[in-house]
């Protein structure tokens, strides 16, 4: 397999990281809550059979402070569209998780030709007052790992500061990721994406962690009903909200099988 390549694009004046690894058909991935402070096993799995391209989102690790100039939802959607284009993902298969899944779905709705097939892992964007998502920004610090992953140690390992990292900037970057998510989804997580789902024509795989403690599983049904393209819903056993962290091989397998 090829080595991990890192390149940088400019988005609204902010340097934005693009990771690329593997060979085969191109597959983009937009990360979930917390972003990608480091490469992860799930991407390694995908790279076995795909050319995986992973752009950072503004404000998330690798995305500098790009979120600070995005005030409205349209600003975000245009930025994501531009990032996907610059990353060479126009018209490719696209997967996303959590906050990234919501943005992937938006792009597929607004610019149907820009996404071939779509895989969404527990996307943000909906709010049902009778069955609300958990508020990820009103949590005691020690509660977050168990909220994001079925196995909290996996989240902790993802966020742990590597040797040699800047001990002041590293924690600030992790807070920034939470801030960037808040900038899009505060306070309820509700972007009214429901109104746009009917515009999604791409065949869509919906994945939901069996133990997702953030996004109610009932939301999968709303996505499945509203999306115009054909949808398939799978529950990932033993996984939490960020199913790709808890069960990298299983989630990667579901996605590549769907895309084949």
């Amino acid at each position, binding site marked *: 397999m090829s080595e991990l390549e890192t390149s940088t694009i400019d988005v609204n004046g902010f340097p934005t990281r693009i990771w690329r690894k593997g060979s085969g058909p191109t597959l983009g991935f937009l990360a979930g809550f917390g972003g990608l402070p480091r490469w992860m096993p799930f991407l390694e799995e995908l790279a076995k059979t795909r050319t995986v391209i992973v752009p950072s989102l503004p404000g998330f690790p690798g995305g500098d402070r790009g979120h600070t100039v995005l*005030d409205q939802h349209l600003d975000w959607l245009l930025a994501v569209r531009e990032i996907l284009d610059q990353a060479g993902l126009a018209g490719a298969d696209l997967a996303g998780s959590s906050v990234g899944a919501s943005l992937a779905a938006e792009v597929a709705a607004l610019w149907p030709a820009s996404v071939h097939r779509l895989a969404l892992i527990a996307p943000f964007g909906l709010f049902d007052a009778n069955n609300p998502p958990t508020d990820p920004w009103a949590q*005691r610090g020690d509660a977050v790992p168990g909220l994001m992953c079925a196995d909290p140690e996996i989240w902790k390992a993802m966020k742990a500061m590597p040797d040699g990292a800047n001990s002041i900037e590293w924690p600030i970057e992790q807070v920034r990721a939470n801030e960037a998510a808040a900038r899009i989804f505060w306070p309820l997580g509700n972007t009214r994406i429901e109104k746009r789902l009917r515009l999604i024509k791409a065949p869509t795989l919906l994945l939901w962690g069996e133990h997702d403690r953030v996004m109610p599983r009932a939301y999968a049904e709303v996505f499945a009903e509203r999306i115009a393209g054909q949808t398939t819903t799978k529950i990932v056993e033993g996984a939490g909200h960020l199913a790709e962290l808890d069960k990298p091989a299983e989630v990667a397998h579901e996605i590549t099988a769907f895309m084949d």
Partner: protein
Amino acid sequence: MKLMWFHLMPYTELPEDFRDANPSVWVDIHSSLFDPRRAHLMYNDFMDELEYAAAVGFDAICVNEHHSNGYGLMPSPNLIASSLARRTTDTAICVMGNSLALYNPPTRVAEEFAMIDCISGGRLIAGFPVGTPMDTCYAYGTNPSQLRQRYHEAHDLVVRAWTERDTFAFNGRFNQQRYVNIWPRPIQQPHPPIWVPGGGSVETWRWCAEMNYVYCYLSYYGYKAGRATMDGFWTEMDRLGKDRNPYQAGFLQFVGVAESRQQAFDLYSEAAEYFYGRCLHVDPKWATPPGYSSEGSQRAGIESQVKQAADSGVRGKSTGERFASVARDMDAIVEKGYVIIGSPDEVAEQLREVATQLNVGHLMLLLQYGNMSKDLTRYNTKLFAEQVMPKLRDVHASWTDHWWPQPMEAAQRAVIPAYAPKLAAAE
């Protein structure tokens, strides 16, 4: 120096087991704990106390804004201030203040403050806090990532609304108004003095210095913890080549005065322990909405903790985080300097030291706190006015306070009749 009387308006009947039985005094405090009929009495007592403080000679009476808060019953301090404007004559009215980003459009603040300034004959101090995370991000749902940008934009809009003579269009990032033209306009020109309560971020120090605003540190933790923050402000002022005029600073301090230190300890323990024990009980989950603290403040906080600096307990910490580590028994409350207690001489001596060491010309005094009764509040207030205040008048006497309200001349102001509606009706 100026001695100002501050009321938080705490709900005074939180149950004894409040801390154990409830997750938080703020945001999701349960409605069953609030009895509106008791609150009727509390509000009227509190307003009596503020009026009393004005009558015994305090330079200002101060109110502030909180939301969904068991120790701050003023979602709208402007309502209280407007009543105080009618029931007092010469005392400055300090609204500390209106959280600018919460008002849509923010010209509402320009209008209401202009109303208070007109009603009071030009006695308003206009406080512009960002607001705590609990008030702004959680109770009011403001996006923490946009809060400060919105605050600054709202500030610019309010100041323009006060000062521009002609109707103008405001083309902001978050606010667009085609026709800005507030009526009424403030009496004080170009506008009422602007004071900014801050939590110790470098950005706020710099902004106050550059804008020539009063920087206030409204901490519940007294002068010992506040020292580093005020030093930080003055260091920034020095760096920018500004005067060390103590009147460009304000500081909040709890006080309990009595005949002796022991008597003060005995008299004020219950109220202080009620405040620090029950009122400052906030669920840490409300502590840190991401983006609320600027990255500069986060950096300073982390660096300060690495160095174990004296201010590591406050720098880069949110209000909620500070609450978590608070002392709650009277011995520690006094020892840490949260509440200054003693005889009039002892209190005066300590406050002189606070005002001098922190270089603060505006001391905002909390003489009512927690469940302190109206009688004890009056006692504390009266003793302070009669026996402490005179001993502090000479402090900072060589400086001029450029940030104090400039009311209309007394002879030109409305005569407010004693309240006698039955007499008036019989005429």
